[in-house]
């Protein structure tokens, strides 16, 4: 269920100051080959161990004319509750005092986003299986992008999706790979769930969008959408491993940067299904 929270920081418009940004392709911040790395570099974000290769063809919003474009930037912060411990927090909160939430998916939702900034040439992301983990576990891509699954472990792995439109169940030996295209955009609400049939603890989520305004936060919890057409949207966040969900309406005004602070807590936990 989507829903705001009174404790959530309100978006505060501010004058545009991220000049010449060309952020469009949302992947984890570790994707140094993407244009989105520019913001990560500004933030001094450390590259994590997620290996994502994207940006082939790098279509870009430069090709799309947005009148008086604006930006939406922010940080996702998780507020811990000693009475409701989140045992996975050790993976996603590098500094528990600051609460910067890593591996959260952030996206805009609005009626006129679809088709903006055409995906252009096909993108390629990589999810490796290493140390019995999918790396990255959470990936966000444009519809039509390809994902290459690899296996760096000295043991047989498998990638399986029961997604109704693109089901697959492929075993991948050490050093081998499997590439598939994700054509359908399920957005932030319907990720493609990935598992390994041999190792039930391994899991990953692929979020597929039909627009360019999405991102996966890195260790500093930040995100930035540039070249956003002014208008009214919902800013949405999910954290699949933590089952956290948040959303709030925002208004993006011309030539500004909307600076947001997304505060989440155990209250934002999705009820178990």
């Amino acid at each position, binding site marked *: 269920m989507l829903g705001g929270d009174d404790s959530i920081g309100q978006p505060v418009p501010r004058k545009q100051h991220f000049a010449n940004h060309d952020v469009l392709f949302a992947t984890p911040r570790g994707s140094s080959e993407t244009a989105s790395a520019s913001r990560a570099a500004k933030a001094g974000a450390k590259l994590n161990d997620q290996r994502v290769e994207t940006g082939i063809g790098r279509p870009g919003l430069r090709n799309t004319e947005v009148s008086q474009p604006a930006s939406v930037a922010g940080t996702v912060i998780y507020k811990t509750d000693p009475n409701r411990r989140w*045992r996975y927090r*050790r993976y996603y909160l590098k500094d528990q005092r600051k609460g910067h939430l890593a591996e959260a998916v952030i996206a805009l939702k609005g009626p006129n986003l679809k088709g903006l900034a055409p995906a252009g040439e096909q993108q390629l992301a990589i999810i490796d299986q290493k140390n*019995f*983990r999918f790396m990255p576990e959470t990936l966000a891509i444009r519809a039509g992008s390809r994902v290459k699954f690899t296996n760096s472990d000295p043991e047989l792995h498998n990638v399986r999706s029961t997604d109704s439109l693109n089901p697959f169940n492929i075993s991948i030996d050490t050093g081998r790979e499997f590439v598939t295209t994700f054509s359908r955009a399920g957005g932030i609400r319907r990720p493609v769930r990935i598992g390994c049939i041999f*190792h*039930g*603890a391994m899991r990953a989520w692929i979020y597929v969008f039909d627009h360019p305004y999405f991102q996966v936060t890195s260790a500093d919890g930040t995100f930035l959408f540039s070249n956003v057409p002014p208008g009214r949207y919902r800013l949405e966040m999910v954290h699949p*491993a933590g089952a956290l969900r948040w959303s709030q309406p925002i208004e993006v005004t011309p030539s500004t940067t909307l600076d947001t602070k997304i505060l989440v807590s155990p209250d934002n936990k999705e009820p178990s299904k």
Partner: protein
Amino acid sequence: MTHRSLTRRDVLRSGSTAMAVAVMQMSMPDFVFPAEEEGEELVEFLNMPRSGPNRLDWETLEEWFTPQEQVFNVQHYGIPEVDSESHRLEITGLVDKPKAFTIDELKERPQHDQLMTLECSGNGASKGFMNAIYNSKWTGTPLAPLLKECGIQPGAKEIVFIGVDRQQETLRKGTSREVTVEVPFGRSMTLTDATNKKLLLAHQRNSQPLEKENGAPLRLIVPGWYGIANVKWLTRIEVRDTRYMGRFMGRDYVTLRGERRGGEVVFVETSVNKMNLKSIIARVTRRPTQDTLVPVKAYGAAWSDGTPVEKVEVRVDDGPWQPARLDEEPRAKYCWTFFSIDLGGLKEGQHTVVSRAVDVNGRVQPAADDDEIALKKTYWEAYQQWPREIELTA
């Protein structure tokens, strides 16, 4: 449903609690073993998968009774729909008085609690599967008196336990003698093992009705035996005069192991049954560096088939084995025992920390390169020592 309703009285009441008074961990702060002090920071294990739902999260292990959301379940023929109202347990075969019982009738019989650590026999076989273990309390009526009432006939040797779950099985696949039939899940025990007074026909776990995936409405509970022997959705008990060789006794859950005999290795196949002596480092903690050394502690758990664990030792890198402190409480015969050790100051950098359990008979938990593990070709009974890799930073 909460499992925090378990009380000290629950533990005391249990027939398996022969030793120490148990104190529930639930009132303690998160991530605190009895020996853990404030200010200790978790040192993450290197090169390990992340923890997920429905699996024990070793690094956050704190509760002697495993929280419900960390309880695993494994089944081979799917999870059947079972109506507890119409469900029957039938006792047939070589008995004078074959009987059938409703769940309510079983509940009316004498009830017994059994505290037990239940481990999947594949647990620990790989990094991707080393969290399939939990500790809980089971409640039900003892099996042995019920078998006695049915009158076991002379010549009976084997007791077979059959579940509701069924699936087609193919034998001699790909040969001219290939045959496929639908069979129910079954496991068996010798008459002696099956009449051990500890065996229960359980309808509750942690004072709550069994969960569907955990065998509701009735599960055989065999303390000290791997999970596969604890037959879920139990519906029939057959007394036979020959060995039962269903898939999960004769073809699957069979350990193939080489044994050295003189100069040669002879391979032997045995059915997976009793749990093995085992221990693991659950987590490592540290304090800020003092004079170039990092104060480090380790915490873990040890368990067995009920044979008392005499000691647990811990080693850092190639150093000497050091004795860990076994928690005096909570303890129960068929449950894990928590341990802790102060490893003193370690140099910054990467280290390996490993534990080994030793039982009262002198049996020592083997290392991965010891013959009994190295010559084991199948993955069940993965009870080898498990080195944990850590990195201590400044």
